[in-house]
């Protein structure tokens, strides 16, 4: 507590004092806890506040910001009390108009359900592109779209069988990757980013265009191609495990989907521990060094683009199968960025990163959605309408998720699975 305990320094501190970063973090988290994140950030505000105070006391010559840290702690304490109250009331009583148990169940259902699978597959692809090879593909939605439409158009419009259509759906992303890669992979990384985002938009607009609606279904999309998939469904009744429940159809989708995820993970794991994976990671670090050692960088980048694109195509294929319809709006650029969010949450360049990230992403989005939806509905909602009404609440969850992602990048930039040491290298 007192300055007498602090150890003698060889040189007196001549630098100006600076506010300790944890103090700022604590204050920000404290405010966030009481507003957007419904208390979830508050315990972290307490924690960061304490960290800041300790650090400032240990080094009072270098740091200031005690006031901010204290503010963060007070707000954090308030928020934490509120959070605990809500949880207790919501779980054990009927006083609150929010059923916390229901919120958790919805969240868990989504985290394990078909939506999470779609994003897990897409993010596995992005992990190969961005995480391992350093390729900036901002058009994963485009790869998903050609995967989905490859199946739907082949069956509905050209009436070829289901299984050949699946083959086409797997081939389409390969062709797209080659088409995108040949002109851009020799250039600087940003060109691929521009080309992919533009191509994904062009594809979405083309698939939704009026002129080609006879072939591609226009804005209403296509249906009636997933019969074979549904016929294969061995489940007849609803699956209810207590903490999660799926309809018979979803159970089948989830089984097939997680199996696809498992196979993809196995492929990524096997490839990335091989010398081939080492070349990809080296390209991410420095292309020219890899060239100088006699490796054909262009060919490796192309292989990575194709592989990740096929995973993206699989995401589209699965999406098309599980909802039995393809609509162009499902393949907007948002989808790519949500997949990136999932990847960053879980940790890039880690085999399991994208999958865990996708699950957490859907858990948060749907949990918050369910909570805020309930908290803002009814005659006397928990959250007064002057803060937000029911329609606004579905947007607030995205704001909260964005905020959460920001905090993650600040406090754990390597994601959940990342290796802290690797990040520390960049700080040198």
């Amino acid at each position, binding site marked *: 507590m007192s300055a007498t305990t602090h150890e003698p320094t060889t040189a007196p501190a001549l630098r100006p004092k600076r506010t300790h970063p944890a103090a700022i973090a604590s204050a920000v988290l404290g405010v966030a806890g009481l507003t957007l994140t419904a208390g979830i950030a508050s315990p972290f505000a307490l924690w960061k506040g304490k960290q800041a105070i300790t650090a400032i006391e240990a080094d009072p010559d270098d740091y200031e910001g005690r006031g901010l840290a204290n503010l963060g702690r007070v707000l954090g304490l308030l928020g934490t009390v509120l959070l605990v109250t809500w949880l207790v009331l919501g779980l054990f009583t009927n006083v609150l108009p929010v059923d916390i148990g229901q919120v958790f169940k919805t969240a868990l259902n989504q985290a394990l359900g078909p939506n999470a699978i779609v994003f897990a597959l897409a993010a596995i692809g992005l992990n190969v592109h961005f995480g391992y090879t350093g390729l900036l593909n901002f058009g994963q939605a485009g790869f998903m779209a050609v995967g989905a439409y490859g199946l739907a158009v082949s069956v509905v419009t050209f009436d070829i069988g289901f299984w050949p259509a699946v083959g086409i759906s797997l081939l389409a992303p390969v062709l797209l990757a080659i088409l995108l890669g040949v002109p851009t992979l020799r250039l600087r990384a940003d060109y691929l980013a521009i080309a992919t985002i533009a191509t994904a938009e062009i594809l979405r607009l083309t698939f939704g265009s009026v002129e080609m609606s006879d072939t591609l279904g226009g804005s209403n999309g296509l249906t009636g191609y997933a019969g074979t998939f549904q016929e294969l469904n061995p489940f007849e009744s609803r699956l209810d495990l207590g903490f999660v429940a799926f309809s018979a159809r979803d159970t089948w989708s989830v089984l097939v989907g997680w199996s696809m995820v498992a196979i993809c993970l196995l*492929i990524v794991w096997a490839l990335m521990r091989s010398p081939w994976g080492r070349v990809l990671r080296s390209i991410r670090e420095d292309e020219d060094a890899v*060239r*100088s050692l006699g490796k054909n960088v262009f060919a490796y980048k192309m292989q990575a683009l194709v592989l990740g694109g096929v995973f993206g195509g699989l995401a589209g294929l699965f999406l098309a199968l599980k909802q039995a319809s393809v609509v162009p709006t499902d393949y907007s650029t948002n989808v790519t960025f949500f997949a990136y969010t999932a990847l960053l949450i879980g940790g890039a360049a880690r085999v399991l990163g994208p999958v865990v990230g996708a699950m957490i992403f859907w858990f948060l989005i749907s949990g918050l959605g369910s909570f805020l939806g309930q908290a803002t509905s009814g005659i006397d909602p928990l959250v007064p309408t002057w803060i937000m009404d029911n329609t606004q609440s579905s947007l607030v969850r995205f704001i909260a998720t964005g905020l959460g992602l920001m905090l993650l990048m600040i406090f754990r930039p390597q994601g959940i699975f990342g290796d802290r*040491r690797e990040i520390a*290298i960049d700080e040198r």
Partner: protein
Amino acid sequence: MSADTEPARPSAAAPRPDLSGLEPRPGVPKPDPIVKGDGIRRTFGGLAAVDVEHIEIQRGVITALIGPNGAGKTTLFNLLTGFDMPDSGEWSFNGTSLQRVAPYKVARLGMVRTFQLTKVLAKLTVIENMRLGATGQRGEKFWSAALPFLWRSQEESNTRRADDLLARFKLDAKREDFAGSLSGGQRKLLEMARALMVDPELIMLDEPMAGVNPALKQSLLGHVKSLRDEGRTVLFVEHDMDMVRDISDWVIVMAQGQIVAEGTPSEVMSNPAVIDAYLGAHHDTDLTELDEHELESEAEAELDHETSTASDEHRKDAP
């Protein structure tokens, strides 16, 4: 005056070719050149960074490429190895023309370079950096990568070779560390060791000793000499005149993009054109008119100065 020596055919066993009889003038033909270049020109805007009329690098010896800052040494390296495109010019390696040949193909032919600004793969460990250098790896092919039994034995032998090299370069203690955590000098060492993993016939080192401590420098000089004794050809850029004098068999001097002098170390260090290049003086004077003694003493002074500043720079930490 010109004395063409017998064409020597160096191998690991054969005695190293003697270049002392060669006429010390820019672009002089060598008895057995491994690299031959003609009219290589590269301009950046109006500046001719490289404008080399004729260059030959003798096989089996250590050639030093020296010159003041901005002389075009690194640019010439980039051009020869395909990392940069010349405006004009042609050059060959072992008789194979290398115009418009991609850098990775140049490396595969046996001509491997390091970079002045080191390019270590920061988020790979030191040993992984080394393994990457090995050529012809079965595990680097997409279809066999997922089947470890196809490449494991090869990987093991590569790792043994890598460990030997790491020990040679005193990096074995850092084996499992991320390359990004190495110091500047250690990065230079790692890059050189990694280039050797490619098993090159010609190794081109861009300032290999910059930032390496004097004690290790001595043992590295030994390693570079042993590369020559293994039958490799070494071309290196260096500002440290001690090193140049100590290990090089032949010296090429560049200034303002051109080769201004060539010769054995002692010949070059007493060559007025070299002093001119380093001093940038006497531009308008005919060299022959100048008092030779005056020039020579000036040369000594400048080169000594050059040496001491270069070593100061590199020995900042030493008392």
